[in-house]
């Protein structure tokens, strides 16, 4: 399963990176006479309501999906790491305050939070990333704090402390390498969720704005014209299903290989 995941993810990443080489058409080239044309040799996934080639748009959509996934998971993990370490190693008051804030933030599921705040900031790539970072950071903060607290009392940290190592040396040299593993695994398992969230937010109109070819936008446009043709919305869903499946399989395999203990916690 892990291998299958790796193959799907590599293929997706390659097709997104090389979208300008592989794509047979310009993703925003409008061709009204050929609108809603069914899949054919010229248009493998057909054309949309403006006659744009759906296959080319899907390839470019992969870029948006991967960009949002990497940037927001990376930032959430980095911020969570800092907050979690601060909570574990800072004064008790700071710890209590951080835990309270993190738990309050976890109260809002991504979609509900996005609906409340998204329209105020205006749709766009930055808003999507910000919303995802805000709603996922608490999970990283929580796991880093728990890990750091557990490690703080472990013997190798105590021995470093007793031999006079400075606090920064302990945190960066001893603690960080041991915390990074679980964080990276959590991040890899988060990527499919983030990809789905980006598409869902764009579908709702609080994410990426048209005419940018995001999978959510293609899905939304397909859904709006579902009475004309149904394959448009079917085609738009395929890369999304593939991407989430691929990343999930890969994340699961990574977790099972590197940290079997974690398997029980999720």
């Amino acid at each position: 399963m892990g291998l299958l995941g790796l193959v799907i993810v590599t293929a997706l990443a390659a097709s997104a990176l090389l979208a300008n080489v592989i794509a047979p058409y310009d993703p925003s080239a409008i061709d009204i006479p050929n609108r809603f044309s069914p899949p054919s040799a010229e248009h493998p996934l057909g054309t949309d309501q403006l006659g744009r080639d759906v296959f080319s748009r899907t390839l470019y959509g992969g870029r948006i999906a991967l960009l949002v996934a990497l940037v927001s998971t990376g930032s959430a993990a980095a911020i969570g790491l800092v907050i979690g370490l601060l909570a574990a190693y800072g004064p008790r008051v700071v710890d209590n305050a951080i835990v309270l804030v993190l738990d309050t933030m976890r109260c809002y599921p991504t979609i509900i939070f996005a609906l409340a705040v998204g329209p105020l900031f205006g749709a766009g790539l930055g808003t999507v990333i910000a919303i995802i970072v805000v709603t996922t950071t608490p999970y990283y903060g929580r796991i880093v704090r728990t890990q750091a607290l557990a490690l703080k009392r472990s013997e190798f940290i105590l021995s470093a402390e007793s031999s006079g190592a400075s606090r920064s040396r302990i945190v960066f040299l001893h603690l960080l390498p041991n915390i990074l593993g679980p964080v990276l695994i959590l991040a890899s398992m988060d990527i499919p969720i983030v990809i789905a969230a980006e598409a869902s937010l764009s579908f709702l109109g609080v994410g990426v704005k048209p005419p940018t070819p995001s999978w959510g936008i293609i899905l939304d446009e397909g859904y709006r014209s579902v009475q004309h043709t149904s394959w448009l919305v079917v085609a738009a869903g395929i890369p999304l299903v593939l991407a989430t499946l691929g990343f999930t399989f890969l994340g699961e395999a990574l977790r099972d290989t590197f940290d079997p203990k974690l398997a029980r916690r999720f």
Partner: protein
Amino acid sequence: MLLFVLRRILLGLLIVLLAVTTLYCLVQAAPGNPIDILLGPRGSPAMKAALEARLGLDQPLPVQIVKFFGSLLEGDLGLDIKTKRPVAELVLERLPKTIALLAASLLFASALGIPLGCFAATHRDSIADRIVGVASVSVISIPPLIIAIYGLLLFAAWLKWLPAVGAGDRGDLADQIYHLVLPTLAVALNWIGYVARLVRASMLEILNEDYIRNARAFGLGEGRVVFRYALRIAVAPTVTVLGIGVGYMLGSAIFAEIVFARPGIGKLIYDALLVRNYPVIMGSVLASTVILVVATTVSDILNALIDPRIRQGQEA
């Protein structure tokens, strides 16, 4: 036990209070202010000031928050900008549809997920176990939006087995349940996989415990050991996860309600969003937060009923 329940309810209230305050501050701090959104680009400064005064937005933030909670306690969520109807009325009208969908999804996810997980654990490493494993990982990751759309196309448009839109005729329970099937599938499918995996993992752990070995050594039947002793404890983490999961289900319910044109809270938020009807958005988000906190509180209390160890204050 009573003390535990009271403590949990108090904590729940505190979280609602905090969550609503944070949301209120966030909305005020955001660059696009609700007044501009309400009035649109043609709003004059005078109109802006008048509307601000009417909504009480010209007062200092702490005063606003206290007033907001004050009117909240009176059940006043403001007026819908389009229809001038009270938002509270709108929300209460839509709420049962969403709660029915969530309840059906919870029921569906546990009714399928728990037996599947239990079966996989008792038949460990068999082909059936592998199939359940791969299938649950696969369904966990598919976005509910896609399940809703594909479900609509397959079962409503092509096969014509199930109705595509609406919530069914009022007063006709069978029709309402009939209309609930596809949205429930869209919301619950992820969770069937999730619950199955969770139950399998905790069953495997518990079946290795000493007290299970003892029960077997006393000659109790395998069925009794599995169902009476192991499953009862193995279900506890599932109840917690489902309690937290209600929040995610609420997110999925929005898509299910949009795709199947089901008049619930999610559809209400979406329609309000399209015309930037801010009081309605805030009111519905508030209602969703309350659903969420109630769900987590109920799941904690249920857990304490199932597993007495939790009651002893280990939950903090």
